[in-house]
């Protein structure tokens, strides 16, 4: 459904995307993860043919991009990171106007509007102004707008950033419905739980390259020990010096927390019994641990 080979993009002297390969299959939900500045948004813009790559090839819905980007975008719906609904139009008019950009007849769009409003949970807001909508409603309308021309593939750039938990769940519910309908979805996200929950496969990007790719569970299994014990509190440094290398298979300290990775937490917890001042959290390893291992723990600004 989407293929990219050896994609590169430079802005001045900085290479933002450096030889990126991607392969998204039909009907799949594919995640693009990466710290800020890893090249996620640039990659999306390249895939849509909004900017021209300096090298590499893209095939989107079987169409060469950017050469035939117009034709390709006929089959793609986009939910951008920043809401850009048309504030001069009501909810319904936003859908009508957007359909026209795809060359649809007014009657054909109007016939789709009730279904789209129902999907967005905005049936009773059809005539509301955009400024009257909450953040979650706006995002749902943006998602419905991206579906106006019934695309095969959807691009979502951080679809739930800035939303409260209830609103996030509604978006997830909508996306699962689309996946069940057979749509292909490509999404970028900062939220590891979102990626674990929604995606069939994902790629972790760093410095414009794919550093790992696979199903979320498979990535966790292949990159990380199954269990993590997070240790923190007074005396953590001393304990790390004296015990960490003996009881952990691998460990890292970040700020005032020790991350102790292991196959079994029993020995770690037994050792911690003798250090009552320390507190700890014992949990299965997650995608976030993979992400932090591969992209480092330093702050990206």
């Amino acid at each position, binding site marked *: 459904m989407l293929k990219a080979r050896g994609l590169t993009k430079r802005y001045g002297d900085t290479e933002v995307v450096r030889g990126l390969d991607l392969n998204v299959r039909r009907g799949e939900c594919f995640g693009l993860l990466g710290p800020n500045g890893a090249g996620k948004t640039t990659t999306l813009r390249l895939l849509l043919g909004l900017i021209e790559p300096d090298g590499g090839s893209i095939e989107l819905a079987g169409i060469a991009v950017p050469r035939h980007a117009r034709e390709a*975008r006929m089959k793609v719906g986009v939910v951008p990171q920043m809401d850009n*609904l048309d504030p001069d139009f009501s909810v319904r008019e936003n859908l009508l106007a957007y359909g*026209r950009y795809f060359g649809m007849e007014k009657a054909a769009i109007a016939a789709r509007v009730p279904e789209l409003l129902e999907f967005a949970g905005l049936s009773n807001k059809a005539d509301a102004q955009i400024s009257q909508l909450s953040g979650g409603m706006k995002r749902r309308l943006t998602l419905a707008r991206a579906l106006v021309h019934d695309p095969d593939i959807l691009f979502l750039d951080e679809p739930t950033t800035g939303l409260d938990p209830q609103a996030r769940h509604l978006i997830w519910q909508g996306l699962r419905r689309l996946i069940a309908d057979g749509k292909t979805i490509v999404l970028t996200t900062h939220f590891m739980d979102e990626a674990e929950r929604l995606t069939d496969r994902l790629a972790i990007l760093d410095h414009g390259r794919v550093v790992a790719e696979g199903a979320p569970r498979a990535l966790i299994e292949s990159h990380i020990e199954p269990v993590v014990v997070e240790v923190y509190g007074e005396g953590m440094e001393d304990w790390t010096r004296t015990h960490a290398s003996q009881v952990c298979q691998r460990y890292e300290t970040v700020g005032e927390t020790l991350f102790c990775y292991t196959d079994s937490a029993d020995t770690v917890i037994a050792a911690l019994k003798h250090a009552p001042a320390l507190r700890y959290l014992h949990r299965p390893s997650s995608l976030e641990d993979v992400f932090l291992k591969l992209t480092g723990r330093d702050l990206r600004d």
Partner: protein
Amino acid sequence: MTHFFRLPRLSWRFVPVWQRNYLVWKKLAIPSILGNLADPMLYMLGLGYGLGSLLPDVGGMPYLTFLAAGTVAYSTMNAATFEVLYSSFSRMHVQRTWDAIMNAPLTLDDVMLGELSWAVAKSLLSGLAILAVIWGLGLYGHFWMTLWIIPVVALVGFCFGGMGLVMNALSPSYDFFLYYFTLVITPMVLLCGVFFPVSQLPPLLQSVSAWLPLTHAVNLARPLVVGNVPDSIALHVVALLAYGSLGYVIALALTRRRLLK
């Protein structure tokens, strides 16, 4: 910078952009018409009658007629300029409407052609309103001749729409547009024979005036009002087309660069 330049690829996809602006305008049509049109008309009638009664013929015609012909060009210029400056800037920069549209199968070329053609439509509206006053007050020589003012008005809208889009591409905020008005538009109004004949200017300024687009607009509009065939029609038409097209092409390159950042 050079690689942002390329010839515009025009397509009919600009039509829904035009239509979008039209539908929004329609919602606020009455206050918009009053706001856009009352102002130049008040100036024209106030100065035309008030000042005109003190003056002998200006440029071989009553001052009100002289001023009315200038106002056709001047209000058309203003309508197009305001549209592509403040309104287009809102849609491009503040509301991000252009971004949304370009996720559909439209390119920047289409979006900006839509904006330009909408500026032409607003100019037509503005020019027609002044023309209606000219007809109503019987300020014209030959009625049929005045109909040629309609395409002239569209051309003037195209010219200043294209030029204004360059400012739109360069502007960091609304405040920036004030420079354009103070340094370009206002001097042009004074140098191009809107309020008084260019022949009143010192020779140096007269030769500057000959290069300014508004001069070409006035030189087409004024004879048509009075009922004469304008001199050097081809020169004026080509000049207005050139300013507008060049503006559009440069604005396209500058906007392409801007939106990449």
